[in-house]
């Protein structure tokens, strides 16, 4: 019965995909079918995975005769169920959102194809987490990539989208190649592609080989996850896709890489090397910090969000890295704590990043621009979207009592637990990474003050923004669901931690829920009791409880009265051009971190009468993307230069060609005889 419930959604997705294509001539019908099926499927698979997770069972279904040397086998264990749960939950929300959102494309683009890809995309993500052999995994992994590539270039008439898609596809394909190598090396020792065999044989391999495999896996999946410096595709690709897809890509697709990384490193490689954890930790810290730094300089709303995905992947990697460190030192409860920190952030990031992307979709639909410099004042036109965006911003900035805070708190705890270990390097590094996390969090808050403030507050800066309208109900529902989740997973973390405990049981054979949750079920403690505790539930109650205080204070002496008047602006009537812009807002940071950004500033001044009367002043500032320009461009150019050189061998002259044959023969006769 359960396996039926596990399989059924897969077929529903398939049905949604096919019917969507079938009805593609009639967009609204196609939309109904595609997203109806997707909604049903994701809801169903959410329930199934939740029930599996709660009961802590793992499920194995196999079909024979899929391919000559493998079988089609899916295994839903704790980790898979957890990820499926997240994917499905986010999918529910984005699907609701999509019902209304895709209307934007009616008559302009093939909605049938969009529905098709949407369903297949979800299907492939779920199958990636379910696959129990390498061939299946790689097939669905690549399917996921390719389908999302098509979604990235959905607006294919835009040069930018095409470029983004290409970079995306190629980079992730390179990553896949490395993953393939990993699997092949496993295959060499197991003579099988079954993950079960990998699990058995993997940990027995030599340390050098396993370290090599670890690096391959880390780079391979890291490309997809978007860790720095392999992230360059991400800020291009995520913004180009339709917003509901961006939500899925940022929210869950890049997490499948985390899933796979955990699966391979924990189960197949038997994480027992300290430096693995250190590498993941450091790269995580780097990604988190640089991700948010670049986000700060970004004025394209969706790209800004994309950079934040890099940041959050970094934070997740911090947790995973600490877990690997603890594992190598055989501190299993702490490893479980760190794993939970990472995994919980996976879910939270899915929720708030999904929410933020959906909101950006709503904004995009209302204003047709992603440039926040052209927005402003939307809070009055789109109060709901603004509210949801605020929830998302607060969550992503890790402000209590929302969910981002809880998982970052857990990450801090695992980092500090690292500080309590006996190993000196870890003792120094872990708290320092904690400091980086602090900086990251603060900068994220800065970035979202900018994003929310410039987008929603003050006066509209363009005609588009002035004419914006609130999103239709379906979209609001989608956003609302996620906003609700941000709150719930923030305020009631103990429930989710007890779910995650099943994951660590299946992954590490360690249960920590009793050590992590106060008897009352209210507060979390980081395994080592008395070190610290957190009860967001109580915090939320406290915050609410104090609400009457200011309310009463305001009315203490006299009834509340206020006058509406224009903003004081040195006596001049306020107009949008006087407002602080996003560029200006982030400029201090840019000045402080000049070395990193290497800004190119350009000021153009024209005078009515020199030097006193300005006619106009144009200030432009671009930052240099170090990785793109210093790392990837040289590689690309080198390859192209080499190609051009090799191409000269095809001279067009038949004499040369004959000479090639001649020389080949002669060389063969001399050397190979």
């Amino acid at each position, binding site marked *: 019965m359960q396996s039926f419930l596990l399989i059924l959604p897969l077929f529903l997705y398939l049905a949604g995909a096919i019917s969507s294509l079938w009805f593609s001539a009639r967009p609204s019908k196609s939309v109904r079918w595609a997203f109806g099926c997707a909604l049903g499927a994701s809801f169903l698979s959410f329930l199934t995975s939740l029930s599996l997770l709660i009961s802590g069972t793992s499920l194995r279904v196999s079909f024979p005769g899929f391919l000559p040397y493998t079988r089609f086998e899916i295994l839903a264990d704790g980790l898979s169920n957890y990820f499926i749960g997240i994917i499905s939950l986010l999918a529910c929300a984005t699907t609701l959102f999509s019902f209304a959102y895709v209307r934007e494309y009616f008559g302009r683009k093939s909605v049938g194809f969009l529905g098709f890809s949407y369903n297949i995309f979800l299907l492939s993500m779920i199958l990636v987490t379910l696959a129990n052999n390498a061939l299946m995994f790689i097939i669905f992994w690549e399917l996921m990539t390719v389908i999302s590539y098509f979604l990235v270039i959905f607006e294919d008439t835009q040069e930018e989208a095409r470029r983004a898609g290409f970079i995306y596809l190629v980079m992730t394909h390179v990553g896949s190649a490395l993953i393939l190598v990993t699997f092949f090396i496993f295959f060499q020792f197991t003579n099988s592609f079954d993950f079960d065999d990998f699990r058995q044989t993997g940990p027995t391999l030599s340390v050098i080989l396993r370290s090599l495999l670890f690096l391959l896996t880390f780079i391979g999946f890291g490309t997809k996850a978007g860790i720095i410096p392999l992230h360059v595709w991400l800020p291009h690709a995520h913004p180009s896709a339709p917003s509901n897809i961006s939500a899925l890509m940022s929210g869950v697709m890049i997490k499948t890489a985390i899933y796979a990384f955990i699966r391979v490193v924990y189960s197949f490689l038997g994480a027992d090397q300290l430096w693995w954890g250190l590498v993941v930790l450091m790269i995580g810290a780097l990604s988190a910090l640089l991700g948010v730094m670049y986000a700060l300089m970004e004025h394209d709303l969706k790209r800004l969000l994309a950079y934040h995905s890099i940041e959050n992947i970094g934070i997740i990697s911090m947790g995973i890295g600490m877990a690997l460190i603890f594992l190598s030192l055989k501190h299993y409860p702490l490893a479980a704590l760190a794993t939970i920190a990472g995994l919980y952030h996976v879910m939270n990031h899915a929720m708030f990043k999904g929410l933020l992307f959906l909101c950006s979709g709503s904004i995009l639909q209302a204003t047709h621009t992603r440039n926040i410099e052209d927005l402003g004042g939307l809070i009055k036109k789109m109060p709901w979207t603004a509210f949801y965006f605020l929830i998302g911003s607060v969550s992503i900035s890790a402000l209590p009592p929302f969910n981002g805070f809880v998982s970052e708190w857990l990450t801090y705890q695992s980092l500090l637990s690292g500080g309590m270990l006996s190993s000196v390097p870890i003792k120094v590094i872990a708290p320092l990474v904690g400091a980086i996390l602090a900086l990251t969090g603060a900068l994220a808050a800065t970035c979202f003050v900018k994003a929310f403030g410039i987008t929603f507050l003050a006066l509209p800066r363009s005609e588009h923004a002035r004419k914006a309208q609130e999103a239709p109900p379906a979209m609001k529902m989608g956003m609302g669901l996620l906003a609700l989740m941000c709150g719930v997973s923030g305020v009631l973390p103990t429930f989710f931690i007890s779910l995650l405990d099943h994951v660590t049981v299946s992954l590490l054979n360690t249960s920590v829920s009793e050590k992590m949750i106060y008897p009352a079920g209210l507060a979390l403690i980081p395994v080592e009791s008395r070190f610290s505790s957190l009860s967001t539930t109580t915090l939320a109650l406290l915050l609410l409880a104090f609400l009457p205080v200011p309310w009463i204070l305001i009315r203490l002496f006299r009834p509340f009265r206020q006058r509406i008047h224009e903003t004081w602006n040195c006596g001049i009537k306020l107009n949008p051009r006087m407002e602080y812009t996003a560029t200006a807002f982030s400029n201090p940071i840019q000045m402080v971190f000049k070395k990193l950004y290497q800004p190119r500033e350009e000021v153009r001044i024209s005078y009515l009468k020199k030097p006193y009367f300005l006619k106009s002043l144009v200030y432009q500032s671009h930052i240099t993307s170090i990785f793109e320009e210093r790392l990837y461009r040289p590689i690309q150019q080198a390859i192209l230069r080499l190609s051009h050189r090799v191409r000269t061998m*095809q001279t067009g002259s*038949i*004499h040369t060609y*004959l000479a090639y044959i*001649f020389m080949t023969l002669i060389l063969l006769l001399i050397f190979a005889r």
Partner: protein
Amino acid sequence: MIAETAEQILNLLTTPLLILSLMIVGQSRIGASIRLYTFQSANLALLCFAVGYFEQEFSLYWVGLLTLVIKVVLIPTVLLYIVNKIKVAREVEQLIGAPSSLIISAALIGLSYYTTRPILEDLYVVTKDCLPVSIALVLIGLFIMIGRKKAVMQIVGLLIMENGIFLAALATTLGMPLAVELGIFFDLLVGALIMGILVYHINQTFETIDVDKLTRLKG
């Protein structure tokens, strides 16, 4: 005794093959090259008869006859007809000068002896010394194709290669089975014809048969 004489006679008949191909290498006129090829083919036919005689292999007479008909008569006629028809400059333009060509050809002959040495020890036919010669012919044929600009000369080079292969078959295995030999001759004839037609078309379109001009397809 008979074997020794046979070997001498055969050697006597083989050497001109090499000399003729070297002459073609040094030759600067198309017509003359084709005629030299004719001589070489005739020489080959002769060799064929001789081997057939010494080895009592009757089918070789047929092969020799076919060689005469196709390589001595038909193919040179076709080639000469085309050369006359398209009225190209008779001069063979060379990419590599005659002296260096000859030196390279000599090196190629050396290479063929070097390559075949281990095999020759295991060969027990009278004609075994022809094997290096045949490889040399093949290589020289290819070398001519590389070194000459005119399309017709490439055909000649190809034909010399084919003569080399024919010699190899004759020398080592007393010819292929007759049926296969027939097929090869047929292919050769058709091939020469098709190439001839192509040369004609090329001359019509490009107004030259200088293959150096056929270099538009690159990259």
